């Protein structure tokens, strides 16, 4: 792991990986959307609106997954002082906020026909909203210092503290009796979902993961280049 923490090494590998991840992301999402919209059955209770699931559920998984990644990157930044981990955490925050926003918006669109309301203050919805606030707080804190190093450290601390929210979101549907339905997939017995619906769901999830890797690489490369430009300008003016 430490071998890849070298920015030059990272850029080299990332540039080679990026075309693959981005094209596979596109392929997976397109196939997932095709199967989800045209080639999967409507739900016997929910009708056609169930198709929102193919965006909503993978996006929700991503919102938690990205926060966990961000917390892990922040921890490795605080422990080993790898600047690349800091850059990764900084880049992950807006991506995670975007996926969380997608989750909340598609959830509202799905809730309107199913529950008859855009929004309810149940445990799952509220805790995801708090997750969204945590992402925004991270982004506000990381840029609030004149010394970027301090911003990174403070925001890394916040990311770690905010991690308490992740298990709360995950288990909120089990701990509290909520309007939001409990998990159908990650259960100890067989998943409670038909294979014709599971295929597009997993394809979309894979597509989103690859999309995340692609955007992350692009963002991290951009920050690395920005840092180099800054350093060169400092050299010139100094």
């Amino acid at each position, binding site marked *: 792991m430490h071998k890849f923490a070298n920015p030059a090494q990272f850029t080299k590998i990332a540039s080679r990986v990026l075309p693959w991840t981005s094209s596979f992301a596109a392929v997976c999402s397109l196939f997932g959307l095709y199967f989800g919209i045209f080639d999967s059955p409507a739900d016997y209770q929910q009708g056609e609106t169930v198709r929102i699931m193919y965006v909503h559920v993978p996006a929700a998984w991503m919102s938690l997954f990205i926060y966990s990644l961000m917390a892990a990157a922040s921890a490795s930044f605080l422990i080993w002082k790898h600047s690349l981990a800091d850059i990764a955490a900084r880049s992950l925050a807006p991506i995670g906020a975007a996926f969380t926003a997608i989750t909340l918006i598609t959830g509202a669109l799905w809730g309107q026909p199913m529950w008859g309301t855009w929004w309810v203050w149940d445990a799952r919805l509220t805790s995801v909203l708090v997750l969204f606030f945590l992402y*925004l707080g991270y982004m*506000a804190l990381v840029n609030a210092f004149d*010394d970027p190093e301090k911003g990174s450290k*403070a925001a890394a601390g916040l990311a770690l*503290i*905010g991690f308490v929210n992740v298990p709360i979101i995950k288990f909120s549907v089990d701990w509290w009796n909520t309007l939001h339905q409990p998990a159908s997939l990650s259960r100890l017995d067989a998943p409670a979902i038909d294979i014709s619906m599971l295929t597009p769901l997993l394809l979309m999830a894979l597509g989103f993961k690859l999309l995340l890797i692609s955007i992350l690489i692009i963002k991290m490369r951009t920050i690395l280049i920005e840092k180099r430009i800054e350093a060169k300008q400092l050299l010139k003016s100094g």
Partner: protein
Amino acid sequence: MKKFLALVQRDLILVYRSANDAWVVLFFFVIAVTLFPLGIGPDPSVLQQFSGGIIWICALLSAMLSLDGVFQSDFDDGSLDQMILTSYPLELLVLGKCFVHWLTTGFPILLISPVLATMLNMNLDSYSTLLITMLLGTPTISLMGGVGAALVLGSRLSGVLISLIILPLIIPILIFSVAAINASGEGMEISSAVKLLGALLIISSVFCPWATAATLRNLTY
């Protein structure tokens, strides 16, 4: 223990010398509560229904106002660096500073809250619950807020930032407190919410000073 008390005494003297700052927070709390009857209408039954929520929301907001100052003056004049350098555990010093913060903001708010509850026509059965939730909840805010105060130390706009960071994290305190107050108004069992508040206080009194001290060591060197 002697040094701990010495720090508490020093900070209390500092607050006493600039007593204005402590009054301002209390005054803000009173004014903020006053706005609600004017905003949502003076109907006593409506106010009774919302009284617990109003008082708690205003208590959270007033705490946010004062939290960014917990370490600020010590940070500015360099005495925070000295505290970090001493052999005395920084965690205990942090605990002392959070205690002083609670004593000078949370406790006065607790003392005045029954008066405001009367003005909001709170159900008589809820007064004791209000005081219990305040007694358990406001120290937790000071402890969790200490972490936030350490995180925003030295940033621009630290006062607003701390609200952005800490308010989402102290939502459980608001939920359990108001749930207990409303339940007591309807004559229902409150012990589960109060126990959860107590658990939050115990967890944060162990975890928060440690997290705050780690943050302070990390940020200022």
